[in-house]
């Protein structure tokens, strides 16, 4: 189905244009810059809504395709398109970006540069989810890196210098290895093209057996670090703790998803049989991430660090589910069960990405909410917020229960179905993951109690409760979490076709 407007290019172009315009504005005109930035970042939401409306859920392949030659001599193209999987994440980005923008209004220090970088960052993220050409994908993948460095490095906390460069170098290690993998693929397939779909189709035949596993790791490393998979996760807590609130929000809600998205879009479909062979190992790493992340989170005394580690734990579910989807065909189940297990797992993986995006965004906003008021994230200094700021605390309660996988909120669907799909394939992994589920309850409730319960310290009596601007940022996320639980179909229906194709690629049916 073809669109009248180049929606996808617009989704990319509007923020980019906004950034350029912002550059031209005088640095004194902060208010104008803010308004412009917020509006510019809100526009994609409308565009995505249009795309969603025009999206045909029955078609598995990419839609709204735009492709033009970029580097003919290499066969690289400007090739955009969405299928259900990417559309889900694009929508998530489109939702989170304006919220982050609104949350950025209180940034006074070098506001102009901040907004320029923020808008470029968003462009990069959109690009990653929209690109269907390897080279283009890679360009955006890296493009999201540089603004992030500055956003953490300039507007970050006391140890921003360390955190920023750690984030930059650590993620660069992975992504720069990725390009080697991509080029290797490009040459081995011999198709003079960077077209993801085409290469994915040719790869299994074209790549010699000896190279498959190394190539798989080249294609995995970048995404594993971005996700972050255990044990390459340690950049995350530092980055989160130092980053300003809106950036933490984007980082947790969207940026991490680039990793798992990459696995789904590139790593798995390109080398399905390797994914199948290694699915056990991958599942192990996923489970370790779940349990390890949960208990590490429980061991933190810093509000933001705890939330950061919870991200590690939650993304573990996604990795586990993807591993299960890859391993299902060889698990010796009867085909019908294997297929629906794989489908459940991979749909749940995407669902989990979105759900975690909403929950973690809310959590980081709340961290910022109290940090702005009390200038501390130390549990020992917080407490009693149910009394001082009841509304905020209520949101924290919602976030905590949502995050621990309480039914009624989207995260539950993600966790439940990812594990449901995994159990037939990797039962042991699931039984281990149960420990992680209990751990999740432990750290989330600990967080809730340390922050919201108990007696507030005297100096925090009479803190201002949620302002209108903050409410505007909280409510959509809560709404999203509720909607996605009570009417999961809204997301599942667009996922079904592409996921079925994905599972088919993995030899699941």
């Amino acid at each position, binding site marked *: 189905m073809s669109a009248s407007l180049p929606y996808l290019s617009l989704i990319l172009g509007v923020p980019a244009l906004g950034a350029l315009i912002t550059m031209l504005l005088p640095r004194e005109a902060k208010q104008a810059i803010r308004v412009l930035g917020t509006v510019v970042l809100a526009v994609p939401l409308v565009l995505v809504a249009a795309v969603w409306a025009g999206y045909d859920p029955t078609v598995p392949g990419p839609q709204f395709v735009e492709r033009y030659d970029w580097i003919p001599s290499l066969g690289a193209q400007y090739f955009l398109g969405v299928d259900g999987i990417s559309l889900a994440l694009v929508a998530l980005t489109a939702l989170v970006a304006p919220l982050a923008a609104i949350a950025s209004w209180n940034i006074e220090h070098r506001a102009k540069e901040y907004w320029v970088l923020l808008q470029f960052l968003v462009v990069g993220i959109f690009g990653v989810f929209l690109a269907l050409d390897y080279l283009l994908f890679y360009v955006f993948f890296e493009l999201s890196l540089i603004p992030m460095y500055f956003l953490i490095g300039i507007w970050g906390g006391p140890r921003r210098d360390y955190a920023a460069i750690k984030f930059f170098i650590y993620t660069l290690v992975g992504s720069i290895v990725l390009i080697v993998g991509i080029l290797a693929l490009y040459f081995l397939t011999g198709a003079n093209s960077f077209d993801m779909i085409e290469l994915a189709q040719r790869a299994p035949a074209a790549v010699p057996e000896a190279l498959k596993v190394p190539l798989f790791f080249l294609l995995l490393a970048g995404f594993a670090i971005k996700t972050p998979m255990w044990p390459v996760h340690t950049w995350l807590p530092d980055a989160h703790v130092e980053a300003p609130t809106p950036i933490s929000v984007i980082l947790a809600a969207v940026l991490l998803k680039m990793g798992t998205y990459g696995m789904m879009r590139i790593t798995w479909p390109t080398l399905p049989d390797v994914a199948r062979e290694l699915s056990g190992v991958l599942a192990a790493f996923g489970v370790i991430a779940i349990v390890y992340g949960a208990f590490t989170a429980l061991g*933190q005394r810093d509000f933001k660090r705890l939330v950061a580690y919870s991200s590690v734990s939650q993304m573990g579910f996604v990795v586990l589910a993807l591993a299960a989807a890859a391993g299902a065909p060889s698990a010796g189940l009867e085909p019908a069960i294997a297929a*629906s297990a794989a489908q459940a797992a991979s749909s749940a993986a995407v669902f989990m990405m979105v759900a975690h995006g909403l929950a973690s965004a809310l959590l980081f906003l709340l961290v910022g909410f109290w940090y702005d008021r009390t200038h501390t994230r130390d549990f020992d200094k917080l407490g009693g917020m149910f009394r001082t700021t009841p509304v905020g605390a209520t949101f924290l309660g919602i976030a905590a229960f949502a995050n621990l996988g309480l039914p009624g909120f989207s995260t539950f669907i993600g966790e439940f179905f990812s594990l*449901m799909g995994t*159990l037939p394939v990797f039962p042991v992994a*699931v039984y281990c993951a149960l420990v992680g589920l209990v751990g999740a309850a432990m750290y989330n409730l600990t967080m809730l*109690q340390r922050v919201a319960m108990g007696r507030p310290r005297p100096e925090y009596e009479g803190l201002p409760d949620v302002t209108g601007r903050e409410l505007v940022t909280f409510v959509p996320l809560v709404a999203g979490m509720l909607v996605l639980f009570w009417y999961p179909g809204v997301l599942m229906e667009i996922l079904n076709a592409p996921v079925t194709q994905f599972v088919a690629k993995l030899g699941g049916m």
Partner: protein
Amino acid sequence: MESAWLIPVFPLMAFVLTVFFGRRLGERAGWIGVAGMLAATALAAAVFRDAVASPEGYASSFPWLQIGDFELRVGFRVDNLEAALLIMVSFVSLMVHVFSLGYMHGDARYNRYFALISLFTAAMLGLVISDNALFWLLWWEIMGACSYLLIGHWFEERENQAAAYKAFITTRIGDVLMMAGFWYMFKLTGSLRFEDWQAWVQHNAGAGMDFTRAMTVAALLIFGGAVGKSAQAPLHVWLPDAMAGPTPVSALIHAATMVAAGVFLIARTYFIFEQSTTALAVVAFLGAFTAFLAATIAVVQSDIKKVLAYSTVSQLGYMVMALGVGGYTAAMFHLWTHGFFKALLFLGSGAVIHAVHTQNMHEMGGLARKLKVTAATFAIGMLALSGIWPFSGFYSKDEILLAAYHSQYPALFWAGAVTAGLTAFYMTRALILTFFGRPRDPERYEHAHEGGPELTWPLILLAIPAFAAGFLAPTLFKAPVHEFITFGEHVGGHEPESLVVLVGTLFAVGGILAGIVVYGLGWISTRTLRAALEMPYYVLREKWFFDWAYERVVLGGSMLLARVVAGIDRLVVDGLVNGVARVVVWLGDVTRRWSTGLVHTYMLTLFAGVVALALLILQVTGGLR
């Protein structure tokens, strides 16, 4: 019955309204909840009537979620059992709501309280009628969350927080096992609907070892959920602590409804348990053990609510045991009656606490003269719990003992009987210490006075079913209980046995008499008793060391693990990363020192390089051979 799905909706609406308008309404907000419950109760009554009229139940569902070929239909089902439970739950909840109007008067978070109990009731009612695992889990967990928040209602106190945390985490341990059980059933059946499961199980019934083993695994995993929610050993530790919450909450959640959900879970998935004698045996013995254990602990409790809490644990164990020995009907029937009289007892204790502002029975005494209604109703509840004819408890307990008697484990029958005796004993003790004898705390005794109508009426109204539910049941059900509450073709009842009745009653009366002898007449002083039974007494005071274990293993263990892992993460995993960076920089310094600034170093290196290069190339090209 088609409108049964509306029953949970009323309290849900009450919840929503209270959340959004509660603050404006102030204490009037309580009435929203009451109104909601009135509507729910009325509807429940109507549904019950229909159910009685038409033996075959009603179910309806609609597609809710489609993942690939996997479709999940959700809906509700009403059958006799559900109908009975609906009416019980909504009635008790209504009573609790009313009671709370007075009990929570002037509380700082009055609205929050009412919102949560309304939400809780909605969840419980939803659970009763839900027809698939996923929504079962939904209501189940929402109940857990409400319970958590209500136990922590006065969260300023650390111990209340701790109690709430304990409650949620302990039950969560069971819940995740239950989830695993559900996923396991999905693995087997590819569905999440109870009826599909049942169909599949009955279709494959007796399909050999693998099938039985699978059933055992599934049953035990699911049983984990029941162990958590219904406070079976060893996960029972949370329930007594849960008394930290307001007493009406204890009455509703931790006596009548939520804790019963665990038992109900077993009933709901009974077709799985049936297939595995192993699972049934585990269930039966664990239940019996829990019943006995809790009863013994209850004997030495001095906090009136704790006594009731342990009695709850004990009674739940009773029901579980009943299920284990195939007494499906008995268990459900006891669940039903127990709901009434345990709620009554808790509300009674609430009234007492409201009057004297203490929970310690040793600071009470002689209150019968002041709190006549309370005392009378409490006595009814006590007799019902002790299983004295013709009180409701007698019938249900008798059914259970009967089932145990007919099972292949006679030991369970005697265990049940002994437990019955203990129950009678500690309830007598509680009654006497609270209401009779001379006041041990005159000053409190002076200020004690009966509460207002919103406190007394619920007691009276609950006293009626507590007394009559037993012998009225057949008339209500228009059928013998074991025909009304049935499980498939399998009829859950047996013909009454005079022996069983005799033994049961003997033990009960014996317990009561012992109680009177010790606490009423004081022929045997408690001091001498303690002296005589020093060791057992210590063990009981220490609650058989279960709490100690919980502190060490669950709390201590998890925190220790957390600290260790966090340390490892910082030092090892992250240390490795920074270590690599440091090594590289160190190499940098080394290589820097290479360029000494001396031309000679440079030229020397240059020519050493030349020679090396020459040799290398000669080697490569075979020039050296």
